[in-house]
């Protein structure tokens, strides 16, 4: 455990940023937090979390894959991959940190996604324990401890200082590189901070939310559940929940005709969109009910089925805050669990 006095916070950021690019949550022009590059004068946001999740760093919304050029009958293919450089993300919350493990389970298994892998290898994640979780938070439901987040380094805010603990070799290296700014930390202060946070967590309105009724082996029981009709009835079919979700990992590969060649790119896709499963033969999910069901079955049943019971949701609460019609995973879980 190390300690960083808040008076030295800017020196710490400067020291980290001198070696690699540092990103942290900053308030944007409408006062909402988003990850931005640290430069001298940039102040960290005090918001609980960013509007968009931290998955953008490893799985960006759009990404160029390759380019083609045709001259006569020959086609030339260009690899447009940009070499990734080392970077640090500071201030990631426990929920988002847990989402990286979910993305890893998709992109780092065979066949490994080399674009994703390269960014994971170059990125160092510094997480920040929550001290004031919001009423829309429910990470505890999925066994995530907001007071003890994962990541390469974990940070706790205690009076006038940050306590830092390295969890991995990457984390050790990061703290070693700024060792002259750090003092010895205090385990007890961290425990006290954790106890305070956990007391709040226990009192949150969604603290009692359980995964009862969903999870491993529930496919047959839930697939034709009558509640899907009423749950999906008012769904607009927009992609808001998907695009702010830290664990949604689907993408589409598209070709853009530039007029002088083809650029092949991938971009986030949403199972809520009508063309998500559109193939040569047509579309296998023609109604919003089917699309809606897919999104929640994937997170609450299919994913746990294939990943030893781990759920595909981290309880960050972004979809609760952002859904235009306030339909969300909590309402779905409660309904399927027979609580509504």
């Amino acid at each position, binding site marked *: 455990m190390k300690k960083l006095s808040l008076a030295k916070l800017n020196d710490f950021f400067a020291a980290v940023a001198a070696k690699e690019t540092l990103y942290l949550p900053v308030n944007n022009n409408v006062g909402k937090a988003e990850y931005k590059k640290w430069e001298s004068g940039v102040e960290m946001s005090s918001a609980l979390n960013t509007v968009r999740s931290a998955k953008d760093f490893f799985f960006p919304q759009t990404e160029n894959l390759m380019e083609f050029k045709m001259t006569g009958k020959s086609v030339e293919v260009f690899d447009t991959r940009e070499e990734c450089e080392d970077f640090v993300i500071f201030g990631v919350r426990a929920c988002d940190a847990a989402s990286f493990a979910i993305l890893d389970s998709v992109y780092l298994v065979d066949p490994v996604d080399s674009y994703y892998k390269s960014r994971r290898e170059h990125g160092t994640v510094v997480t920040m324990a929550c001290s004031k979780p919001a009423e829309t938070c429910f990470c505890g439901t999925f066994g995530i401890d907001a007071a003890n987040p994962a990541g390469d380094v974990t940070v706790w805010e205690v009076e006038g200082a940050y306590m830092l603990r390295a969890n991995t070799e990457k984390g050790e290296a990061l703290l070693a590189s700024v060792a002259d700014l750090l003092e010895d930390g205090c385990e007890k202060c961290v425990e006290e901070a954790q106890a305070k946070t956990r007391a709040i967590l226990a009192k949150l309105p969604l603290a009692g939310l359980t995964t009862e009724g969903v999870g491993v082996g529930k496919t047959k029981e839930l697939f034709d559940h009558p509640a899907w009709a009423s749950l999906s009835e008012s769904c607009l079919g927009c992609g808001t929940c998907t695009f702010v979700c830290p664990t949604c990992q689907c993408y589409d590969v598209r070709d853009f005709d530039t*007029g002088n060649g083809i650029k092949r790119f991938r971009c986030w896709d949403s199972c809520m969109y009508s063309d998500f499963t559109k193939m040569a033969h047509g579309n296998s999910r023609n109604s919003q009910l089917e699309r809606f069901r897919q999104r929640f079955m994937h997170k609450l049943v299919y994913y746990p089925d294939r990943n030893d019971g781990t759920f595909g949701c981290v309880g960050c609460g972004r979809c609760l805050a952002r859904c235009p019609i306030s339909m969300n995973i909590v309402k779905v879980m409660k309904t399927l669990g027979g609580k509504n």
Partner: protein
Amino acid sequence: MQDVKEFRPKIVAFCCNWCSYAGADLAGSARLSYPADVKIIRVPCSCRVNPMFILRAFQRGADGVIMAGCHPGDCHYTSGNYFARRRMTLLFSMLDYLGIERERTRVEWISAAEGAKFSKTMNEFVDTITALGENKRLEDLRCKK
């Protein structure tokens, strides 16, 4: 001496088949010149021009877009140009509102008999866009060579 590349604007002109397109022909047969930078796209009526055509032209590298149709009252289909006029009025006003240079978009009414007006308009427009420089605010970098 250094080889400085002179800026030649790319201009897209949507021309109505029944008037300005024939006007361009007349300009040609009367040997009235207009810059080769103007690429004409023939449309059956100015009313065929959808706001997306205008934006698409900018995306594909145009530095200026002009729509030329029949004089109000002379539409081959009676009223197409009147509707087109309202649409372009609102679109151009919106582009201006978004901070896109208002000189880059233009509407002109040119009849089949006005070869001279066609040539003059295009020369003027090319001069304006040349002075204005490259389209940066509505460009799509993917389409740049």
